[in-house]
């Protein structure tokens, strides 16, 4: 069965497993979504937005929904938790035995989406699917069709969460060809502040697909520091969409780190719907072997006096392939927009490849927008300079590559996360440099 028919057929089975839940508003959303998926079909490289990334390898596999499995031992997942209190999901299902979140301020909710659908129905229904559009978006439609579990974070007006909140989505994949559709819904009301980390990791050696969607609502004057760390197994397909809505004077920082997976597509879409928003998108991807990573971003300036800063860097070794497409869309009303976008890439081998396409679409006349992209090898003059001071060739390459990644890593404000990422990236760079000529 081809992918486009396969999932609607699985949807029927899924629907039957839901029993009495099919009358809920969320289920109406699921039904609309599966119809939209059926109508859209999987994207092909003829679609402009997917021109450099073929999803054919994953559409050839009939992925089954991952069942809830035995929770792994806490000790086995410690390495993925950065010493942070975490809400843990295993193969898409909430794992209460591994989750611990203490000391949350009064009124703040951090819980499984499944529980929230039952307990906070109105709040969830009011937001779910409001930012993440399913029309023409096959993967988001698919995620929404099968939406059942994931994380729900609610920060009521004025609440401040000091400690970072970590959501870990772990794939243990004990049987081949399974899919999970983790969904994250974050609602930060006016003047709320928090740091949230979503991380995705894999333990197994089987082929699997993670198809995640995150919706983030940043209220007036709210400040959210959001991280998304992808450390999937080398066998993983990882598709993600992060949709953000930012109200007046909101401050939102997004940091996306991609290290794992065989094929990754990250889409980040932020809509600046109030005046005076300050929005930052940082990203780092470090890939080697046959990995493919596609970072796709859309920053929509809909209101005046907003700023956006985008800074993505990539390091590719082996035969890795990278794609960056970033669009800044400035609507006619968005006067005094100040937006810049940078994408810098370092190729460590002759066979690595990057396609980068920054795009500005501007309909307002009083704006400051800039963009730039670079692709390069390590600076030979810098390598010689280090070597002429007694530093060996290998070490010189390592130092310079780490420095390149450091410009993004140094912007990670959660110390424990930054230290671990630094360690992981350094390790990865040694591997990538090892296969370089």
């Amino acid at each position, binding site marked *: 069965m081809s992918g486009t028919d396969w999932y609607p057929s699985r949807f029927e089975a899924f629907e039957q497993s839901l029993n009495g839940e099919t009358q809920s508003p969320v289920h109406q959303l699921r039904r609309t979504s599966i119809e939209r998926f059926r109508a859209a079909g999987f994207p092909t490289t003829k679609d402009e937005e997917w021109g450099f990334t073929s999803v054919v390898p994953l559409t050839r596999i009939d992925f089954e929904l991952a069942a809830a499995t035995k929770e792994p031992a806490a000790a086995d997942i410690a390495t993925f938790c950065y010493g942070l209190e975490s809400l843990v999901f295993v193969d898409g299902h909430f794992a209460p035995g591994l989750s611990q979140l203490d000391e949350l301020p009064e009124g703040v909710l951090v819980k499984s989406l499944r529980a929230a659908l039952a307990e906070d129905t109105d709040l969830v229904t009011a937001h779910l699917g409001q930012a993440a559009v399913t029309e023409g978006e096959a993967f988001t439609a698919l995620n929404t069709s099968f939406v059942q579990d994931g994380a729900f974070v609610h920060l009521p007006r004025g609440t401040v969460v000091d400690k970072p909140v970590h959501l870990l989505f772990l794939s243990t994949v004990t049987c081949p060809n399974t899919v999970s559709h983790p969904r994250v819904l974050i609602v930060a009301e006016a003047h709320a502040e928090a740091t949230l980390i979503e991380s995705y990791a894999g333990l197994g050696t089987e082929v699997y697909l993670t198809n995640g969607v995150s919706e983030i609502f940043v209220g007036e004057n709210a400040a959210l520091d959001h991280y998304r760390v992808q450390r999937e197994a080398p066998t993983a397909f990882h598709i993600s969409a992060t949709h953000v809505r930012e109200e007046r004077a909101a401050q939102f920082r997004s940091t996306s780190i991609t290290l794992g997976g065989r094929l990754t597509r990250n889409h980040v879409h932020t809509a600046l719907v109030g005046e005076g928003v300050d929005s930052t998108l940082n990203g780092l991807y470090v890939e080697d072997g046959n990995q493919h990573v596609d970072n796709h971003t859309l920053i929509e300036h809909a209101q005046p006096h907003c700023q956006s800063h985008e800074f993505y860097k990539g390091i590719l070794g082996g035969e890795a392939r990278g794609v960056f497409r970033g669009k800044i869309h400035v609507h006619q009303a968005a006067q005094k927009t100040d937006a810049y976008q940078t994408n810098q890439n370092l190729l460590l081998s002759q066979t690595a490849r990057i396609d980068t396409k920054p795009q500005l679409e501007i309909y307002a006349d009083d704006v400051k927008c800039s963009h730039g992209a670079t692709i390069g090898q390590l600076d030979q003059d810098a390598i010689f300079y*280090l070597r002429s*001071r*007694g530093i060996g060739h290998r*070490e010189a390459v390592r130092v310079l590559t780490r420095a390149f990644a*450091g410009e993004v890593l140094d912007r990670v404000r959660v110390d424990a996360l930054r230290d671990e990422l630094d360690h992981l990236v350094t390790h990865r760079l040694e591997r990538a440099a090892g296969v370089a000529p």
Partner: protein
Amino acid sequence: MLKIGNLYASVEDIEILKGIDLEVNAGEVHAIMGPNGSGKSTLAQVLAGREGYEVSGEATFDGQDLLDMDPEQRARAGLFLAFQYPVEIPGVNSTYFLRTSYNEIRKHRGEEAVDAMDFLDLIREKLALVEMDESFLKRPVNEGFSGGEKKRNEILQMAVLEPKLSILDETDSGLDIDALRIVANGVNKLHAPDKAVVVVTHYQRLLNYIIPDYVHVLYQGRIAESGGKELALELEEKGYDWIKDESLEQAL
């Protein structure tokens, strides 16, 4: 210490060095002068091990075949090149760079690595030598440095690494008189009977501060003239045309 015999170097079939002979002994200061394009910087780069040159002839450093060594091996053996254009390295902290370099050279000498605290004591002392502020240590290597700061940073590295042979490639270019004095003063203080210095320069003015024992004039890839420090003054007076005319006569 350094023996160069019949050294040739070319880039993409263009011959730049055409048979250089030079001997530098411990305790000596040599100046290599010459007009633009005479091959001065190429000589410095080739000695430091820069790739991209087709090199033939001989060069030994303390009896070791220099041309057979990687740039890092040359540095560890005690050869130092102060760059004409020091490279900016964003994202690499100056202290980290200096300590890594210092420890690599110590390791080669069979000495133990120095930890961050001990290194800080050492570097403070060396900073004073080139009149540099401690805030420099927090900055990325050469990034955003003025021309003078970059050159002082080269001498700072020389002070930390304590090489046997220092080759200063146009260290005076782009320096104002104060920076020139600081740089020269640093070089003089670091000089010792067991060390040697080769100063590569276009102008005589640096040689007012670093007094050479020998002056060589490089012209069209060859040493056209050698002499004592008075040769530099003669050049200053007569200009390089004098050498050019003389070479022409010899050729004829």
